[in-house]
């Protein structure tokens, strides 16, 4: 699949998903079980993505490097109720500094 195909297909599916929310009849989603699974889905997907982006190398093998330190700093910032941008910048700066020092 070419990159442009990937870009356009993902965009089309993104819009279809968004638009579906505007046309789906309410009754379909009133089932409590569907509602509950959907409630947890974003948390599960994002947590998995965080884990993969932080702790895996190119081919899926597990690795501990500067990204893990960045994530630890991000969590520390969140516990101190830091704003979104501070969290992101602090994590990036941590990883950058460690790499500049030759670690990770």
């Amino acid at each position, binding site marked *: 699949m070419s*990159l442009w195909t990937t870009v356009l297909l993902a965009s089309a599916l993104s*819009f279809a998903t968004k638009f579906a*929310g505007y046309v789906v009849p309410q009754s379909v989603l009133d089932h409590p079980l569907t509602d509950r699974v959907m409630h947890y889905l*974003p948390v599960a997907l994002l947590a998995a993505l965080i*884990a993969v982006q932080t702790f895996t190398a190119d081919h*899926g093998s597990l690795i501990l490097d500067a990204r893990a330190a960045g994530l630890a700093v991000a969590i520390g910032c969140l516990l101190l109720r830091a704003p979104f941008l501070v969290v992101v910048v602090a994590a990036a700066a941590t*990883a950058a500094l460690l790499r500049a020092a030759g670690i990770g």
Partner: protein
Amino acid sequence: MTDEAARQADDIPPTPGQQSKAVARKGIWVGIATGAYGISYGALAVAAGLSFWQAVALSLLLFSGGSQFALVGVLGAGGSGASAIGTSTLLGLRNGFYGLQVSKLLQVTGWRRAAAAHLTIDESTAVSITQPDRALSRVGFWWTGLSVFVLWGLMSAVGAALGNAMGDPARFGLDAAAPAAFCALVWSRLQTRRSQLVAVAAGLIALAVAPHTASGIPVLVAALAAVVAGFLPDRNVTTAEEI
């Protein structure tokens, strides 16, 4: 600001016009904050192998930050187009559920409905559904949606242009920025014990699966954590979970 000070001094409640302006201003600030972060997306996108125009096209056409980061993340890690699209689409599913709430507030038809659907993301939904009445919800939705759309697109372009000149984004810790951002986004949803368990379980599932599958797949498999959490009985869950 002077209007507000005068109003407080005279103890006069804000007029609808003043309220609208305050909500619109909030929308613009959210757009600026999100736009600043768009620089990182643009740089990561070109680092993952996308061209400048592909990176910008995603911001204008796909327009969902989490999905875009996921898509370029999977591609950058050498994943297939299919798993990139799958991950991006799964991460974008929540936008469909936002639409259920937001469409009721907006009551739009025709081309405005399509435009509203396109702008239905975390930020516009959050500002919209936290307003005291329907008129302000609409103001909040459109101002936030449009300001995020414009600034996210613009800053993605800046990041994509800089990305080429910046060299390895890892040198600037940009590969650590994305997981930190996702962590910040998901943080407010980790208020209950069950949500926390879902997050930890999903992370562990993904890492257990990662060495054995194509990239993109581990995240999809980790959705099992949500399914299990949704199906488990509520016995050990406080009522706060349902609020």
